[in-house]
């Protein structure tokens, strides 16, 4: 995470991948009482990951990262349970399984993010789609759409913030 915060894309991708595998069982357990479908669990996993991404400058690097991640996960899960009209108890342990977790399915489709991103305006949506569906880098998207790489990055960052705003407003 330190190198990821330093802007290293490869390290960050690896971190996020580990993170998604660690978060899935935590969210699944938190939502055990409300019989959430796998796609709904995945919605929450992605919402938590987005919050971690946008708020990563609030991690105090002199402290272990686990409690910080759990605090964000708990916060978002409580929001979601509230949205479902139920007050849930969210487990606070489990983060330490982080490295053991594995062999889960990253292919589960989540719906929230697709729905929200489809409402983005033309160019922003094209950029998001080129990155998520075609796996393009910012450079490649820039070449394809005839924009500067900086403009692509700015647009993507705005889209991510807009996504977080929609998540929050629907809570």
């Amino acid at each position, binding site marked *: 995470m330190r190198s990821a915060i330093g802007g290293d894309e490869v390290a960050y991708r690896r971190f996020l991948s580990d993170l998604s595998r660690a978060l899935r069982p935590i969210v699944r357990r938190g939502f055990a009482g409300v019989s959430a479908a796998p796609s709904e669990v995945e919605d929450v996993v992605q919402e938590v990951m987005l919050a971690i991404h946008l708020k990563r400058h*609030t991690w105090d690097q002199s402290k272990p990262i686990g409690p910080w991640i759990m605090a964000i996960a708990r916060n978002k899960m409580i929001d979601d349970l509230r949205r479902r009209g139920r007050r849930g108890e969210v487990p606070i342990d489990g983060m330490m399984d982080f490295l053991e977790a594995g062999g889960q399915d990253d292919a589960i489709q989540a719906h929230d993010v697709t729905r929200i991103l489809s409402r983005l305006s033309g160019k922003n949506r094209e950029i998001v789609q080129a990155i*998520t569906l075609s796996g393009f880098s910012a450079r490649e998207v820039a070449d394809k759409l005839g924009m500067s790489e900086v403009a692509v990055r700015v647009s993507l960052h705005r889209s991510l913030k807009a996504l977080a705003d929609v998540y929050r407003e629907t809570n």
Partner: protein
Amino acid sequence: MNTDNFISMLAVDASDRERPIERTLLLMLVFGVLASAVFFAWQIGTRPDVMTVAMQSWEFVFKFVVTLGVAIPAYLLARQAMRPDGNVTSVVPLLFVAPVMLAIAMGYTAMNMPSETVVSTVMAPNWSKCVSLIAVLAVAPFAALFYAMRQGAPANPALAGAICGLLSAAIAATLYASHCDMDSPLFVGVWYPVGIAAVTAIGAVAGSRLLRW
């Protein structure tokens, strides 16, 4: 969208990062204090005999002990409140030091003056000016600190807003104390807390609406 694709989107955004939140908070604190101090120097100003009383009156100096005694723990609280995993309760005991000292000073002062002057000291005609100027001087620090808090991820938005209010009001009271010629702990102990509490309450309401993330 599956999570692999979602991760691609976040990874491409890896280089867009903000400065560490504690630096943002400190920067905004400095900015807020300077803005309020400039406004104070321009529109309000210190009292004419400020140098003399600073040397001779323990009551005058004590005002700053109290206001800074609130401001410093409030800043430490803000540093905790801005993080999702912050530990606010560890700082709370420090927050009681200044009020306790003030209460003792109030008791001491009241016992050493004729009882009929106690009420007239508390109800000095300046009280409304005291309360309103603390609120006015708190505006700039509050805006700056609230902005910093929005960049954070406070576990409790209402509490985080209240702490912004408390810290900005303590800064305001520190500036105002050098203007006000009411030095008696009896006056300070009643009206300064009223002004500070009002700003803190506004902060709590604003925080509960605007500091969710």
